[in-house]
């Protein structure tokens, strides 16, 4: 075997400059026959992008990280001369490698390993064997039974048993049934579905085909959000390849099973992650949730029995059918089996995709795998579940990751967004951030959600701008309860969670804003007071020159002062000062 080089070209890798690295490698290798150059998806170690993997002739992996154009030259040089010691300065550190080594990968097993644009790579990695087994050896009922044994539950957030939904759709009367994949990953802070589609699209396709066989659907649709152009391109190509190879189409593997898969691009609406809203959108209408029942399994897309699962749920299915449900159930804890992918971001040292068995603790993920907080700051909270979830404080870091334990904290498992915050993040600000989001994204159908989120947002805005009133916290709590009760769908029912969980654990921060007009995290701009420490100021005027409001005056080489009435609290002086003379309170 010759030397093989693969450049990680997921969206993150490309944003970090992977395309330029690929070009540099390609130019330098100049069509050399001894070295093959290709691409791969995202391995999930986003903090190390761009990543280039070099496989030596004996198959040993040399993983080069944070590669720039110069690094690309080194890699090409090493590959051409066969002197792999040259790679030394680029190699991943043992500590960083631990980020990947300490994970348990089922849904992400091929991500960053195979070339997502080549079906041959997926097949070589064991792909489409589970589908063959299902179609040629198992009845649909047996497939559902295997999924039941595995304990797989909906990874989009709700955690509903997958077999139950499949079974309900299968048992619904009617010839025409639909299978739908929810790839409308709208939770800001989650990107595992994008990574699966970009890095291992055939895994999704195989999972969907198995699901379609199980419920008896001849047509499947993937609803992908429009913000993921690369995912759409890769999925479209993968569908084309799978059609050409006969996995999608008529009489797959010579059996009675026929199915086609098409892509529908979303148009940007968070509520479309809700399954009945998604169906409305698929039908070309405003994405407004329907009243349940009837459930989609009875009357869904075009009022036919339909089954909707999330991308990550489908990504587990081929593995389960290849290895057996019992093998999957070995991971996790009672009532919560298998693994979960988290998108760990925010103030952590090592951010990216982390797949761990259910039952590990938040501390294991944030400190064990992601390396804790960067820049020597202190951990304050972790936000789970996005706009429907909540903030979990340091005292609960040993909470076990399963649906029940996380819900007990006031957060939720959600789709797996895990945004880590340090001492500089204002908790009232975070609650307002999410309410801003849900206010904009509320479809407007239910009064409590449409107006309630707006009022919640207004009260929070008032608090962060120093105009909070006594009793605002109680008012928020009362309104939250009303919105939860009065909303039809998950968006409205969970929209108050970010407010309630921050009040529950960080009530003192709310009170500091309201009573003392002070933001303990020093984040709320309008509550900050900038001043210059005379003893440290050398009178260089750097701050005065940067000040957009001309609020700083003084005498050169003596000292400067800030006029608080003119100050717009932009912080330009703070970044401009090289002597640490600007104070913020």
């Amino acid at each position, binding site marked *: 075997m010759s030397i093989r080089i693969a450049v990680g070209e997921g969206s993150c890798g490309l*944003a970090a400059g992977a395309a330029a690295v690929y070009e540099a490698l390609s130019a330098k290798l100049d069509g050399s026959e001894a070295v093959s150059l290709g691409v791969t998806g995202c391995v999930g170690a*986003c903090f190390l992008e761009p990543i280039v993997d070099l496989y030596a002739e004996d198959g040993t992996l040399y993983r080069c990280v944070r590669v720039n154009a110069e690094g690309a030259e080194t890699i090409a040089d090493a590959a051409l001369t066969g002197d792999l010691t040259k790679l030394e300065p680029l190699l991943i550190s043992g500590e960083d490698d631990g980020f990947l080594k300490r994970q348990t990968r089922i849904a992400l097993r091929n991500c960053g390993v195979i070339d997502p644009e080549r079906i041959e790579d997926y097949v070589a990695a064991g792909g489409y064997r589970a589908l063959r087994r299902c179609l040629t050896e198992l009845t649909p009922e047996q497939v559902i039974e295997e999924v039941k044994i595995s304990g797989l539950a909906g990874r989009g957030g709700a955690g509903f048993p997958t077999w139950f939904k499949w079974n309900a759709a299968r048992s619904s009367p009617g010839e025409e049934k639909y299978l739908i994949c929810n790839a409308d990953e709208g939770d800001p*802070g989650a990107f595992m579905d994008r990574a699966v589609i970009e890095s291992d699209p055939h895994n999704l396709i195989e999972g969907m085909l198995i699901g379609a066989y199980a419920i008896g659907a001849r047509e499947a649709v993937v609803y992908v959000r429009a913000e993921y152009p690369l995912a759409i391109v890769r999925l479209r190509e993968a569908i084309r390849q799978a059609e050409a190879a006969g996995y999608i189409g008529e009489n797959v593997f010579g059996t009675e099973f026929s199915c086609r898969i098409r892509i529908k691009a979303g*148009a*940007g609406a968070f509520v479309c992650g809700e399954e009945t809203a998604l169906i409305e959108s698929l039908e070309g*209408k405003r994405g407004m949730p329907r009243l349940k029942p009837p459930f989609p399994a009875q009357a869904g897309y075009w009022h036919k029995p339909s089954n909707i699962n999330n991308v990550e749920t489908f990504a587990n299915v081929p593995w389960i059918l290849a290895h057996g449900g019992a093998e999957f159930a070995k991971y996790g804890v009672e009532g919560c089996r298998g693994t979960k992918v988290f998108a760990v*971001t925010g103030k952590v040292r090592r951010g990216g995709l982390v797949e761990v068995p259910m039952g590990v603790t938040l501390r294991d993920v944030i400190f064990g795998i992601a390396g804790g907080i960067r820049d020597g700051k202190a951990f304050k909270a972790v936000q789970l579940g996005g706009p429907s979830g909540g903030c979990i404080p340091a005292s609960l870091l040993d909470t076990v990751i399963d649906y029940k334990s996380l819900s007990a904290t006031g957060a939720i498992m959600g789709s797996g967004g895990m*945004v880590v915050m340090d001492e500089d993040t204002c908790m009232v600000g975070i609650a307002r951030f999410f309410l801003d989001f849900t206010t904009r*994204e509320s479809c407007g159908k239910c009064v409590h959600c449409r107006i309630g989120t707006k009022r919640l947002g207004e009260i929070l805005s008032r608090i962060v701008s120093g105009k909070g009133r006594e009793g605002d916290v109680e008012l928020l709590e009362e309104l939250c309860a009303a919105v939860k009760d009065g909303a039809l769908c998950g968006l409205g029912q969970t929209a108050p969670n970010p407010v309630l969980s921050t009040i529950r654990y960080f009530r003192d921060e709310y009170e500091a804003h309201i009573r003392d007009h002070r933001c303990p995290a020093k984040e709320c701009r309008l509550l900050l007071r900038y001043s210059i420490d005379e003893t440290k100021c050398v009178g260089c005027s750097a701050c005065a020159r940067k000040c*957009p409001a001309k609020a700083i005056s003084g005498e050169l080489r003596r000292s400067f002062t800030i006029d608080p009435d003119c100050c717009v609290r932009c912080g330009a002086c703070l970044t401009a000062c090289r002597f640490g003379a600007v104070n913020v309170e």
Partner: protein
Amino acid sequence: MPDSTTPALDLTPLEPVLDEYAAVPGSLITILQKTQELYGYLPMDALYRIAEATGSSPAQVLGTASFYSQFRFKPMGKHLILLCKGTACHVNGADAITLAVMNELDVANGDTTEDGLFSLSLVACLGCCSLAPVMMIDERTYGRLTPDKARQILRDIRKEEQA
């Protein structure tokens, strides 16, 4: 009705799209997406034509279009800036980036600069959370931004345009 003082829009490029999709149930969003690809935005005249061809009321068509954040009703600048306001970006200082971009270009969210060079759109999440804060200009993503870096990127594009 469309304003009679503006020149009539050339609807001929839209016809092949309507031929393909108008009769397919549930295709309205696809038609709107293709229309926006053609014109860069959704002109009122086109929306009336779509309503007529699909047998829906203009209110249904506009109601659907206005529901989704992807659709624009005003022509767009030459470069579209998608500025991420996702959670990870928020925690990493997206507000300061937003302020810097708005001040540098003197535009509000959803508007276009006077010279027609840039349109600014604040978006929920671009999914590049590990590179936060991020913005996407045309199809290119810029990560790990600081206010200065963001300003510099815009100035570089402007310089390139003037050259």
